[in-house]
């Protein structure tokens, strides 16, 4: 097992390097010169050249890449062209917001998705199964940002029950702590701030969770249908166990393996969706920061953020693989596998 984990980590290294090359190539080779955008159209050629020199853009590409890589390895992702603050620091300060949103979203998606999937599998071809199927289909077909807009229009515009943007009332914002507002406010015992933070996270988390919820529902349904037709389920029923007990203890437990994998992989893809959700809800996370930086051609930020998200994505996939290997006793990772 340990050997397998080490092997997977070693295999991830070239992928990570490759991701850094792809990111670098896109931002430095395919893109136009950022100097006129950052300095404005009226800047003199001399000023632009000076700026390029100062930002290392006149160096040969290969030198630029190794500078970028060496920096990234030591946690230095360069400076923003505009604010001159270190990109690493900017990303880290926004990281908890994005992770908090993604975690709440995946919890919503997993709970509702698994429950809906189980119900529609155990009540196959019933109206509730049909409803779950339609919900799952609409969930994967609806743009995340449009769902966000609809939620804002309804809950903030029509009902006035939930805030439409931001993370917390600025007056209630916890100082210091972990940066995870739900956790910080709870630890400080400030329930007013906690409920404010919770009310802010509901809509974006719901919008973000929709796609994953649909995928998890479909996966749970098909996985459950498979285990429900197994011999051991029939045996359990034949010996007179209650239906609910068979459904949960025999069928669902065995169906959980692929479901867990899907839930894990969805957590990774939530990070991609976070850009759109954060933009709709003005959620101060990495996603919104990247989008804002793209619109301003702030390349070091974009480069650093894409790299960071890529790394997280790879790490999550790695963890999911390892958990899968751990959960399934049938899988033994010998030399030719993995």
């Amino acid at each position: 097992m340990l050997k397998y984990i080490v092997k997977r980590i070693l295999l991830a290294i070239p992928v990570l390097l490759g991701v850094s090359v792809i990111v670098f190539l896109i931002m430095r080779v395919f893109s136009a010169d950022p100097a006129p955008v950052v300095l404005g159209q009226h800047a003199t050629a001399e000023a632009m050249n000076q700026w390029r020199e100062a930002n290392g853009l006149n160096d040969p590409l290969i030198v630029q890449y190794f500078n970028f890589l060496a920096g990234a390895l030591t946690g230095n992702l360069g400076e923003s062209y505009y604010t001159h603050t270190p990109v690493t620091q900017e990303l880290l300060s926004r990281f908890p917001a994005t992770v908090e949103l993604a975690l709440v979203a995946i919890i919503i998606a997993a709970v509702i998705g698994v429950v809906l999937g189980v119900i529609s599998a155990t009540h196959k071809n019933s109206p509730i199964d049909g409803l779950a199927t339609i919900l799952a289909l609409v969930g994967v077909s609806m743009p995340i940002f449009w769902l966000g807009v609809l939620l804002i229009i309804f809950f903030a515009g029509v009902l006035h029950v939930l805030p439409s943007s931001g993370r917390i009332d600025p007056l209630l914002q916890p100082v210091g702590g972990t940066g995870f507002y739900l956790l910080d406010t709870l630890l400080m015992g400030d329930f007013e701030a906690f409920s404010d933070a919770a009310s802010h996270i509901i809509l974006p988390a719901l919008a973000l969770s929709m796609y994953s919820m649909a995928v998890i529902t479909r996966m749970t349904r098909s996985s459950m249908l498979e285990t429900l037709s197994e011999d051991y389920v029939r045996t359990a029923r034949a010996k007179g166990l209650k239906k609910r007990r068979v459904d949960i203890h025999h069928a669902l437990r065995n169906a959980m393996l692929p479901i867990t994998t899907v839930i894990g992989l969805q957590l990774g893809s939530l990070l991609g969706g976070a850009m759109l959700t954060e933009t709709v809800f003005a959620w101060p996370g990495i996603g919104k920061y990247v989008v804002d930086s793209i619109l301003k051609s702030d390349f070091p930020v974009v480069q650093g953020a894409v790299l960071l998200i890529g790394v997280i994505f790879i790490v999550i996939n790695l963890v999911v693989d390892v958990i899968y290997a751990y959960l399934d006793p049938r899988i033994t990772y010998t030399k030719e596998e993995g």
Partner: protein
Amino acid sequence: MAAATLSADADNARTPQTDPTTPGGPKNAPTSNAEKSESLWKDVWYSLRQNIPAMVSLFVILALVIVAIVTFVAPGVLPYDPYQQDLSASFQPPSAEHWFGTDQQGRDIFCRVLIGSQISITVGLLSVAISLVIGVTIGAIAGYKGGRIDTVIMRIMDMMLAIPSILLAIAFMAALGRGIDKAIIAIGFVSIPEYARIVRSQVLAVRQSDYVAAARVIGDSDAVIIFRHVLPNVTPSIIVRATLGISSAILDAAALGFLGLGVQPPAAEWGDMLGRGRNYIFAAPFAMIFPGLAITVTVLAFNLLGDGIRDAFDPKARKR
């Protein structure tokens, strides 16, 4: 899927015998091959026709394509000029005159949603065409050649898959600049690995089969084997993947438009219309509701059609 593959397998297994260079091959074999493959597509079409959601979706898609073509060829059929600004008429709510209301520039949203189909359909089809051609080719090469070529190609694909596709597309757009042509390239490019993986895994399975060995024995070149014997077997999976791929391409294009990385004004694109309406979300919700509805209906139609085609190719689902 199994029936499709089996039936196609049978066709291909016979191909070496029917080769004109092989003496003694049954003369009527080519006709029987053609009949066989025709009957596969007939079967698929028959079972697709029984699938009501898929047929409704096909109808919706055809209607959209017709709308896109008609509004492109004869924009005069639209009740209003979708580009004509009239600031005195901005943000009029839906009425008998303006079914979907007007946007901030006083343009009729219904007309803009209609011509928005041009861009969505174009992006969907062209970007899938890009990823399909490149993905299938390199997937087939990787699977068929194996060894080091396979390792290198698939590692590059892994690297691309390691970045969420929408993020990669956004990074591309940031670098290339706005424009629908660039969106097509960006979206097409980021989906290449999905096709490459599907084709590679199927080619790996087919490569070991007897009829491929037979083709090699009679001296067919690698290219002939890949394109005549191997790829036809992979076609069903590719068709399903491509239909579903169009829906995700339309979603991605809308996301780029929404973030302000899509079309140049005054072009009408559904995601872009949504993004522009954002500042007036409470004053004019209709400016965002209708373009979003258009995206959802279109994507849903392609998803349902893709599911339907997959079931139609699957003999187990067909019998149900």
